[in-house]
């Protein structure tokens, strides 16, 4: 904003502050996801991620195992152990019923039924004594503990192996890479023909491409699903194949690809192409040796778009790919986890972060091309 000098400093400050505020608002959701994904899962579910660096107070239930053979000491049967896996936590209160989980201070001795006693020290050591042999299920110990912050990659290990995200990652790559390369090839050839070759129906084809730019995917799904089933039956290959999904992504990316690339290729200098023609080069040679290298920026822009779009797609993958281990892509897996592990935030946050990691790298690495592509597609 252009302002008079004496107002400028105040206004500039205001602009700095508002932009800072907006940046924080826009970044916080993703930051929260990331911080949560590397927290200990008990801490994650009991306190907000913004408290990740402070010591958290947690109420936890522990069930003491019964030793076999029974331990006898001074005429009494005992169970001895420690509540914690790691030794840094501090117990403040404890109890033995869920109604009164914190009636005793750490170090106290609590009297249970049948002459039993329970002692819990602040370092987590506990001791249960009984005049008789322990039977049935182990004694429950409720305790309140101050647990220092703990960061871990366990969540990632779990989602990558047991939740099958690692496999889905490869499936996603298998879908994405050909679905990015094939449409570029097809579109580049078509765009060259539309820009520099004469053939009947060229204008009509161009208008069709522009019209198809906005056709909603939903319009195509039902007929294609039916057609895929029919083709699958006829050839006995099943309707859910990688080739099927590549072709679908290819076709759905084509209108934008042709449109972007045609605009770019049509803008190449006429002299270069004409002089190559005069020298006797065929259109295929011109395309391969001149146009393709010159259009690199446009090709890069589109391939980033297409990569992001395919990687992030859920709809096409759900319709044209199966639900099994060999075909479930990351987005589909994420949706499944949302249903089956809806409350397990340690699983969801780590999985979501694995899913968005690749697009984020592509984004920050190749932002320049992405912006250029957006601009050539929209600003006129």
């Amino acid at each position, binding site marked *: 904003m252009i302002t008079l000098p004496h107002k400028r400093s105040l206004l500039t400050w205001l602009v700095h502050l508002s932009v800072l505020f907006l940046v924080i608002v*826009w970044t916080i959701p993703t930051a929260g996801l990331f911080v949560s994904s590397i927290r200990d899962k008990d801490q994650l579910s009991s306190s907000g991620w913004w408290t990740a660096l402070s010591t958290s107070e947690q109420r936890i239930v522990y069930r003491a195992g019964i030793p076999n053979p029974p331990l006898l000491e001074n005429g009494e049967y005992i169970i001895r152990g420690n509540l914690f896996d790691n030794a840094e936590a501090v117990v403040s209160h404890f109890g033995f019923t869920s109604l009164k989980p914190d009636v005793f201070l750490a170090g106290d001795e609590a009297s249970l039924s049948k002459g039993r006693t329970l002692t819990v020290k602040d370092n987590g050591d506990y001791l249960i004594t009984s005049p008789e042999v322990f039977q049935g299920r182990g004694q429950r110990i409720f305790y309140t503990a101050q647990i220092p912050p703990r960061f871990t990659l366990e969540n990632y290990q779990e989602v990558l192996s047991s939740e099958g995200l690692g496999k889905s990652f490869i499936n996603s790559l298998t879908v994405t890479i050909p679905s990015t390369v094939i449409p570029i090839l097809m579109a580049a050839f078509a765009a060259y023909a539309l820009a520099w070759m004469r053939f009947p129906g060229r204008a009509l084809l161009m208008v069709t491409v522009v019209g198809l730019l*906005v056709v909603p995917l939903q319009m195509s799904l039902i007929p294609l699903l*039916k057609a895929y089933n029919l083709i699958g039956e006829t050839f006995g290959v099943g309707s859910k194949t990688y080739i099927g999904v590549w072709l679908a992504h290819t076709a759905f990316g084509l209108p934008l690809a042709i449109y972007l690339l045609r605009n770019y290729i049509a803008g190449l200098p006429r002299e270069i192409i004409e002089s190559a023609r005069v020298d006797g080069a065929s259109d295929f040679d011109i395309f391969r040796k001149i146009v393709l290298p010159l259009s690199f920026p446009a090709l890069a822009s589109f391939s980033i778009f297409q990569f992001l779009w395919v990687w992030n797609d859920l709809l096409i993958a759900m319709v044209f790919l199966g639900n099994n281990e060999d075909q479930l892509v990351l987005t589909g897996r994420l949706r499944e986890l949302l249903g089956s592990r809806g409350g397990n935030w340690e699983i*969801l*946050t780590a999985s979501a972060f694995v899913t*968005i990691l690749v697009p*984020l790298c592509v984004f920050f690495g190749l*932002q320049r091309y992405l912006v250029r592509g957006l601009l050539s597609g*929209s600003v006129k």
Partner: protein
Amino acid sequence: MAQLFSALLVMCIGVLGCAAYFYGSNLLLDLCFPAKNRPYDVIAKNLRVCNVIRPWLFVGPAVLALGFYFIFPVLDSIRLSFFDRTGKEFVGFYNYAWLFASAEFFESFKNNMLWLIVVPTLSTFFGLVIATMTDRIWWGNIAKSFIFMPMAISFIGASIIWKFIYDFRNGDDSQIGLLNAVVVFFGGEPVAWITVPFWNSFFLMVILIWIQTGFAMVILSAALRGIPEETLEAAVLDGANGVQIFFRIMVPQIWGTIAVVWTTITILVLKVFDIVLAMTNGQWNTQVLANQMFDWMFRGGGDSGRGAVIAIVIMLLVVPIMVWNIRRTNAEMEGR
């Protein structure tokens, strides 16, 4: 490891197959109609033939793909909308009658209209404001990069991110969702946000606005830079203040770009599906057309008639934008 290897193999076959077609077909054409080492009249004839055939080798795959994945399905969807759930028996306007009598449809339609009003408006507004502000400060590009970042995140990933923010815990448990934590901090009662009818749609819209603002910002920022400095200087000399310059000079200058951004986001909104599916799956009155259509595609074995009817409604909503786009392009092509 074995899976990775087979995946690589499959990828190579796919990509190389495509490249082989273009290379092979052109080579074949050159072999059949050689343009070298022949009498001149033969060369001339061959070249003519080549010039007729080659464009179709180039556009052929694209035309086939567009035909099979767009043209055929659009026509077939229209046909299927007059057939029953299996697509075999002609039922006339039954599906259309069902549509206009269905409360479910009107709910999604109403929600879609809300989405159409709110999301493009706010995304464009925030995009414009941020673009204007970031152009004035030295760290503007870094700021832009952060606001642009959600563009790279999938809708379903974004849904998880925001579901975590809207998370709700009963009673005295400490809230781990940011929004409820803020509410509790200021002494309010925690709310299960995504189950509150009417307003919950807005909480879902926030996700799309969060994603799309960056897009609007990038494009509008480029357009703002295209405004000639002289225009702005003249306005300053004439005594215009900042607000006047913004609304009377800058906004009218980039009006065309605003329209493009607006329509692009509008089309995206019409297709929004993943967010609703992941957040509520249409429960608590948040249904939208795209998700309803997906639902009918598979509900009870799938009802292709009803699914097709809903798809056609979405299509009809897009048609005005499509016509506008085509006209704009035609005008441009003639101008060239």
